[in-house]
């Protein structure tokens, strides 16, 4: 009895997964619970387990290839079992490949020699970096090939949207050549020109691009900045860190202040659902964490009910997991508000893009030593600017200002957070 291994839903928002690596090859025996592949989702690299035992009869997608949710990745079964009907029914992907015309000869004869006999993609031993291809052969419809020829487009730079990554007419039509720098007119001195690079967009970058574009282009953002006196908070943090093993950061204090403010301003702790606005029962604060490939937003659940020490240790742990790409989807989902802090980079103030489905995001700047006027005297002061980006469909200007003033009051009187 053959068993289909299909792309599992590894996160709420995932639509497809990219095979980062196969841990098994065709012909290998696997036990239930064996990790057979690593899959890159929009958020993390996750392990895919076998739920049954059997022999890997067929691997249908290569490393680096994207597979839609529920798409067939591999087939398990008993050795020698006939699985042609499964392959026939393997959705448009496999059947189109099976019935598909043999692609035209690749320019590169060497590459053509290594064509797999079945016409199905065999897994490659090395992860691919170019567009999906069959042992280095690029799959393209004959029309797409001749169009690319006519336009001088290098097929290896085009992402194929057809079955098995086949490049089709629409892909060539939609292909935008990366802007080439205009030739300089008669240079008077010679410059060394370096090779420009085209980096394949990772699943994470794709997700960032899609979600933040959707947010920025469809949610009417407006911004309000407030300057907060951090003198008391600086002192409070210093005395807490002296007395404690855990080291509280300013960001932890901001998380706590926002969480308390959110309980008092439920319209900020909301989501736009089209016909209704959902005011969330709980306060879950996401913290933006920068990592090499992009950024992640792990969530501190019930931040309003947690102490600073707990917020601090959780944030530290989640940020570590984020940098190692080990965050589980449930650790990134369900936020009701997000904080993005660039203070450690010396950024004075900035505006952030709302993290859907939140109503607002708080952009936190650095604490600055500035001269301030107190009782008619110029004295040294510590100030921090925060900017709230709000979705005007949910939150209006005065409401956002009220929320910001609550945050300001809490931060300027940190002891009040203990109440």
């Amino acid at each position, binding site marked *: 009895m053959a068993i289909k291994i299909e792309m599992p839903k590894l996160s709420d928002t995932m639509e497809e997964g990219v095979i980062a690596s196969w841990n098994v090859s065709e012909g290998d025996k696997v036990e239930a619970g064996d990790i057979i592949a690593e899959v890159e989702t929009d958020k993390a690299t996750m392990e895919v387990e076998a739920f049954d035992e059997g022999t890997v009869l067929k691997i249908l997608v290569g490393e680096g290839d994207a597979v839609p949710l529920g798409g067939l990745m591999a087939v398990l079964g008993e050795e020698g079992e006939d699985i042609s009907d499964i392959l026939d029914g393997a959705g448009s992907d496999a059947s*189109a490949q099976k019935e598909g015309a043999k692609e*035209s000869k690749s320019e590169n004869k060497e590459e053509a020699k290594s064509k797999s006999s079945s016409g199905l993609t065999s897994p490659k031993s090395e992860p691919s970096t170019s567009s999906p291809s069959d042992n280095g052969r690029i799959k393209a*419809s004959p*029309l*797409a090939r001749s169009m690319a020829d006519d336009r001088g487009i290098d097929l290896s730079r085009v992402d194929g949207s057809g*079955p098995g990554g086949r490049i089709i*007419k629409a892909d060539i039509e939609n292909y935008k050549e990366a802007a080439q720098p205009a030739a300089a007119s008669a240079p008077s001195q010679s410059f060394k020109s370096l090779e420009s690079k085209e980096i394949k967009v990772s699943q994470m970058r794709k997700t960032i691009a899609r979600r933040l574009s959707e947010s920025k282009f469809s949610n009417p953002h407006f911004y309000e900045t407030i300057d907060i006196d951090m003198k008391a908070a600086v002192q409070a943090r210093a005395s807490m860190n002296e007395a404690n093993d855990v080291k509280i950061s300013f960001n932890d204090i901001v998380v706590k202040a926002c969480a308390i403010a959110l309980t008092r301003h439920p319209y900020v702790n909301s989501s736009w659902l089209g016909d209704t606005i959902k005011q969330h029962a709980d306060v879950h604060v996401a913290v933006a964490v920068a990592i090499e490939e992009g950024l992640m937003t792990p969530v501190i659940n019930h931040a309003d009910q947690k102490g600073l020490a707990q917020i601090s240790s959780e944030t530290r742990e989640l940020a570590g997991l984020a940098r190692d790409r080990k965050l589980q989807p449930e650790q990134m989902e369900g936020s009701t508000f997000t904080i993005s802090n660039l203070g450690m980079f010396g950024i004075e103030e900035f505006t952030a893009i709302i993290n859907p489905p939140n109503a607002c995001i708080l952009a936190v700047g650095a604490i600055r030593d500035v001269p301030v006027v107190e009782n008619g005297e110029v004295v040294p002061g510590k100030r921090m600017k925060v900017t709230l980006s709000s979705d005007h469909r949910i939150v209006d200007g005065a409401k956002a200002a009220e929320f910001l003033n609550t945050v300001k009051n809490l931060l300027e009187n940190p002891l009040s957070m203990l109440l």
Partner: protein
Amino acid sequence: MAELQFREAIKEAIDEEMAREEKVFIMGEEVAEYNGAYKATEGLLDKYGYKRVIDTPISELGFAGIGVGAAMNGLRPIVEFMTFNFAVLAADQIINHASKAGYMTGGQISMPIVFRGPNASAGQLGATHSVAYDSMYAHFPGLKVIYTSEPDDAKGLLKSAIRDDNPVLFMESEQMYGMKGEVSDEEDYIIPIGKGKIKREGSDVTVVAHGKMYHVAKQAAAQLEKDGVEVEIIDPRTVKPLDLPLIIESIKKTNRCVVVDEAHPFAGFAAEIGFLIQREAFDYLDAPVQRVTLPDVNAPFSKPLFDAWLPSAKNVIDAVNQVTYRN
């Protein structure tokens, strides 16, 4: 234009040709006294008499042979089979004699004969009454094969077939005899053999469909139009000789093709078209050519099984979605 049933269009063609040329005569089971098993020869006995409208016994090989002999001797017979499913009994006369007589005598003998009757399935008639033979006869050199889908084509092409000095198989369908359509009332209306027709203009995909399958393709195209897919339907009308240039021109425009055929898949009409397209239009293809055919299974008698067996509009839609990468 006059609105005629398919059977009336056929009768008009035969009638006009019999009136024009007295060497033309028709023979077959029930063509005379009974006015035709499907009433495609209604009134011809009264008009032309027993000498030119001849009832035969149930003996396909026998009367097909009489037809072949008559054609050798200069007459222009129209041989009606009650169904092409039974004409396999006369295959020796059609394939070994009619198609080769001119060739084997160095052109001394001509073979102006038309074999006509219903082809392919007609509902629950069982496995031996449901086969499409156009692909099979088109396989043999020397035979012309026509399988039309609409009354207008039937009239214009049957007149051409009767006038042709070579053996022509002219195929109809029990399920289309009652179908009505506008027929040209042009005097002596002729459609040349080997000319297909673009029956629906579209830019997204070319669907090649003839005979009964044209109507299935038409249904699918109407459904697909609602989804924003513009289907171009080409009815080749003549299976052999085939109007390949018309199909290729269309594919150069749409870049995708689905062939719908009422026959089984192996070495059938759809397979031939698929081969010709990849040879002639390879660089214009954006997807492999798909075909919608019967399965490689004999016709079932059971209604639900039969309905699943026959190519449907849904099958065509699925194939179009596949070649247009919409699934």
